């Protein structure tokens, strides 16, 4: 754990603090239907035109049921839209590589994945998706699925802040305003910055480059149908191939990458995601990509504080997130820096730790930091292979996801997920001050508890039930490249990532099979939309309640005690459920590695 790492970590935290308030202030304007922004002269006409086209009365707010219906309707339509484009990719324009239509299950998986802000990719972008698919079918979701998440968070915060109100905002207005005023402008600036760092953005066909040093590899021989040819022992026949040419990917990358990070989408333009030199060219691009992941989630905590007239509460939630973030980072960094004891025994270890699956350009610290950030938030972009992390190093991303990605979290999703824990913390510990639990003056009663627990229940069922099915079914085991605890981790990670709408993977798993595509697609949709319904129901119930004025007996939701309480709740209520499974996966692996076993 080198000094340079500590300095970078400090710089990261300082910059994050610095942008939180400005982002929060700006969110206040964007999320207020009548808020004024600098972009009004350009975007206001566009905003109003959009309402007219959709037939939306922007002045009319919705109750939680209407809001939920609008959100589900919009998501369903956009899911079908994406599915259709992917299936028709071969006859649609902007396809210089002549890529074929995407298969049914993969198209479903991908449509579900991008609609739910997961961006799990069972495919390699560069060999599967045309420019048109990337730019229209996928990028559109990078914007709108992020906007949906932020809208839900805003609706919940309104529910908490309002006094005896029936409505929680207008979904269409939120969607349009967030997309136009928040995501588009930042994205344009960020994309230009990324281009300045050397990221590509073009419509050129892929470049063929002659290698300076051609080399030979042996690959499995395949027949006409693409099946491996087997010898008489059933082993694949290998043949030598000379590699003298490299195919270099091109395309509209910067515009997509800016949004993939800012909207915590995470779906890479290329398969290697942010470890690819085009997708993450410089240390500066790496830093700002990491920063952009947390930027909106962090700003939303400030928005929460301002909306409920208790800025300390906003910062308290922020501080809770920061502490959990730092703990994860340090554990991951420490484990990776400690490296692999087996390599060390063999004398082949890299000097500074476990470098397997890491970009040399980023090294141990930036890989560990990126992995922690991308899983704290439901981003899922990666600049290293989580699959190659040590037992405990890999435990951190998996654990982060299973906590519900509430550490700054996916845009919007992180805040509303954390607020579920806040409600539960207030309920359990609130009793201990001798009053019916109150959150910011609103009584937490059976309905709110029911909805909060429902959200947790859905998270737990979705992850555990699908993973348990995978580990004992032939379809699940078929995708496995690694055996033992590591294989379990891979499957557990896949469904955690899907349910949590993260999208990153323990890449040892071959999940591009009809069974994985379908089950993961369902897991992603459940993890996103089934979770949102109880949360919006809670928003509606909270909005209707009267606000009790604060007094000496009021439960304090700010300050150090609440931070500790909230951390305890997140860890005890959120994580205990997954500990037995985690023990069989990364934890056992950690101990076995110490004894010299690898998987």
């Amino acid at each position, binding site marked *: 754990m080198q000094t340079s790492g500590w300095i970078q970590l400090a710089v990261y935290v300082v910059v994050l603090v610095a942008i939180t308030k400005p982002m929060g202030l700006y969110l206040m304007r964007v999320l207020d239907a009548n808020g004024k922004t600098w972009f009004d002269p350009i975007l206001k006409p566009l905003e109003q035109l959009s309402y007219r086209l959709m037939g939306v009365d922007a002045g009319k707010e919705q109750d939680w049921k209407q809001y939920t219906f609008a959100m589900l309707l919009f998501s369903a339509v956009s899911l079908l839209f994406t599915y259709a484009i992917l299936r028709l990719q071969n006859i649609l324009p902007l396809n210089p590589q002549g890529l074929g239509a995407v298969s049914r299950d993969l198209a479903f998986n991908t449509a579900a994945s991008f609609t739910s802000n997961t961006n799990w990719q069972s495919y390699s972008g560069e060999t599967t998706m045309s420019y048109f698919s990337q730019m229209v079918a996928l990028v559109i979701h990078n914007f709108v699925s992020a906007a949906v998440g932020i809208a839900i968070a805003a609706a919940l915060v309104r529910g908490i802040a309002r006094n005896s109100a029936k409505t929680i905002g207008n979904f269409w207005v939120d969607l349009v305003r967030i997309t136009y005023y928040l995501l588009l402008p930042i994205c344009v600036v960020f994309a230009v910055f990324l281009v300045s760092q050397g990221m590509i953005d073009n419509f050129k066909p892929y470049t063929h480059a002659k290698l300076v040093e051609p080399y030979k590899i042996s690959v499995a021989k395949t027949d006409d149908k693409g099946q491996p040819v087997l010898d008489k022992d059933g082993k694949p026949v290998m043949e030598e191939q000379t590699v003298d040419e490299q195919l270099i990917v091109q395309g509209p990358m910067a515009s997509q990458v800016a949004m993939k990070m800012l909207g915590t989408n995470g779906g890479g333009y290329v398969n290697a995601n942010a470890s690819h030199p085009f997708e993450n060219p410089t240390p500066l691009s790496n830093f700002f990509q990491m920063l952009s992941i947390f930027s909106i989630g962090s700003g939303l905590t400030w928005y929460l504080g301002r909306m409920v007239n208790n800025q300390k509460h906003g910062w308290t939630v922020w501080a809770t997130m920061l502490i959990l973030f730092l703990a994860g980072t340090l554990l991951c960094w420490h484990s990776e820096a400690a490296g692999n004891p087996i390599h060390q025994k063999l004398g082949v270890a890299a000097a500074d730790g476990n470098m397997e699956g890491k970009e040399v350009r980023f090294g141990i610290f930036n890989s560990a930091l990126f992995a922690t950030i991308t899983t704290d938030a439901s981003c899922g972009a990666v600049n290293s292979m989580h699959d190659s992390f040590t037992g405990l190093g890999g435990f951190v991303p998996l654990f982060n996801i299973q906590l519900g990605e509430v550490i700054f979290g996916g845009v919007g999703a992180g805040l509303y997920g954390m607020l579920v824990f806040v409600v*539960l913390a207030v*309920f*359990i*510990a*609130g*009793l*201990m*001050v*001798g*009053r*019916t639990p109150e959150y910011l*003056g609103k009584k*937490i*009663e*059976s309905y709110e*508890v*029911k909805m909060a*627990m429902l959200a*947790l*229940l859905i998270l*737990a*069922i979705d992850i*555990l*039930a699908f*993973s*348990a*099915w995978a*580990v*004992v079914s032939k379809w699940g085991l078929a995708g496995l490249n690694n055996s033992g*605890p590591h*294989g*379990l981790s891979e499957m557990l990670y896949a469904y955690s990532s899907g349910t949590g709408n993260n999208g990153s993977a323990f890449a040892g798993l071959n999940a591009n099979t009809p069974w994985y595509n379908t089950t993961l697609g369902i897991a992603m949709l459940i993890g996103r939309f089934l979770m949102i319904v109880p949360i919006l129901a809670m928003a509606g119930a909270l909005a209707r309640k*009267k606000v*009790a*004025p604060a007094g*000496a*007996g*009021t*439960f*304090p939701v700010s*300050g150090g*005690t609440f931070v*500790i*309480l909230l951390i*305890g709740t997140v860890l*005890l*209520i959120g994580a*205990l*459920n*997954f*500990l*037995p*499974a985690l*023990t*069989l996966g990364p*934890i*056992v692996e950690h*101990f*076995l590695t110490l004894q010299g*076993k690898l998987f």
Partner: protein
Amino acid sequence: MTQKPPSLFDWNIVGPAIVDAFKKLDPRLMVKNPVMFVTQVGAALTTIAIWAPSGERGFIAQLAVWLWFTVIFANFAEAVAEGRGKAQANTLRKARKDTIARRLRKNVEEQVPAPELQKGDLVVCEAGDIIPADGDVVEGIASVDESAITGESAPVIRESGGDRCAVTGGTRVLSDRIVIRITMEKGQGFLDRMISLVEGAQRQKTPNEIALTILLAALTFIFLLVCVTLKPFGIYSNAVFSVPVLVALLVCLIPTTIGGLLSAIGIAGMDRVLQRNVMAMSGRAVEAAGDVDVLLLDKTGTITLGNRMATAFLPAPNVKTERLADAAQLASLADETPEGRSIVVLAKEKHNLRGREVAEPHAKFVPFSAQTRMSGVDFGDGNGSVKRQIRKGAADAIVQWVAEQGGQSDKAILKGVDEISRTGGTPLVVAEGREVLGLVHLKDIVKGGIKERFAHLRKMGIRTVMITGDNPLTAAAIAAEAGVDDFMAQATPEQKLKRIRDEQSAGHLVAMTGDGTNDAPALAQADVGVAMNTGTQAAREAGNMVDLDSNPTKLLDIVEIGKQMLITRGALTTFSIANDVAKYFAIIPAMLMATFPAIAPLNIMHLHSPTSAILSAVIFNALIIVALIPLALRGVKYTPIGALRTLQRNLLIYGLGGVIVPFIGIKVIDMIITGMHLV
């Protein structure tokens, strides 16, 4: 009813409770408590597994026994809590003897059994009779022994009309004769309701209890899922998890501690309220009391002693204080009002003037009347003419009287009148003939210790509002002296009701005490309405609590009990959830040790063997329920030190304690059972 709480483990309660604990194993009853129901099903599955072919029969049998104990201990907690109520119900039942009522029909008395009385019937009760049912006195006055209900042996006066007309079935008339109109339907009398309340027959879960049950049920469901999915994960990992072991893990993870004690906490809370001689109509009311943040109190009898008292003599210029005191005393000798008596007492205390014989020759007392607004004494000279005339009364009345005598009032007197009024006191002017002697300062006396109680309330986060019929000036002065936060002067029933509604719409929870019929609407509107037992039937019907001692500051106790109930629930829930950490460290390594010996370092408690580890965790889980029964019945202590400090203290004790205690407990149990070679 006993004033003293029964000791926690009175054999008369514990004996039947043990029997009840087994009776409650009926699954139809158990299913109401999801956490313990799951435990019971687990215990049954483990019991069946004893006969399955396995080499660990002794271990599984012990596991089964302890799992059953877990359920039985929880049932026992509930049974003990109920038993305490039953003991009280039996005392009450004795009061409801099958009385013969003397019913009046067309002025003719007839004897009917009490249960046959209808609402609206008239009954006669004379000295020695037991009042057959709840009703209002419509004729006569009597002293009544209400000790059967209140435990207070001093008799109380009940009379027709006014605010003291309500009588309760089961109480005994000690003197005189009264006619009572029955106001309750059969079986719905005060005593009947009280019995069913203390027996828990009508017990319904309170809103907060329901919310907590949902939380616990959801946690139980999640852990059920965790244990069920562990089986396939085990199959993948080549680790065999037997049903008893999975059940053990499940029972240890689900919140059995709070699940087992939840209903006992509620029952015991109601019971504690009753021990303070307050009858709460529902647990909901007690729970609401814990949330109260505005308290409306009547001034008279609650904050002040109820009557104005003379506190000082202020003589006019050139008049000696002794002369004023003497005259004032003479004028008050025959005055039986509390104010009059207080003047006599004050003169005696301050100036050592003995109360003289009232029958002084030729003295004629002039009683107070609403028209003259003064009282006094005339001394004759024996010949029918008046020698000396002394008057005391309202300032303007005396000033006028003096003027009629041809005298004049000093300006200093009028100034004194103003000053006394401004400080909230009542000035009485004393005059003899044409001469004004001075003023008597009457004032409300604030009860001793009341200021401290209000300070106490303020610390609890409760704002007190004094309600009084006094003018705003007087009210403000008393409010300042008593240390209430706010007051309502010249309050009418409509204004009281409006005030409560306003407070409620501002988000406050309002408690109110009252006794009069004109308090009834406000008592009904308040979230917690405490009616005095001496109050009218209307008031007692309107409130959701009746204070049998008619002590308005009792509300403080109720608020504390309400808070204690909530704190106890929160504390045990936190404790229960925090316990899971240690149980994980006990059971998970034990489950995996056979397949992955490498994870031995996870066994941080160094438990002897996998079986001893699992058994220890289960035993700890069962015993902790018994260990916490006294806490559940007594409630966690509440001290008003502010929400933050209360939270910090309880988080430290029950949160951190909940993490640490099981580590120690499980280790100790492991050492014991290993030492005894049980595993």
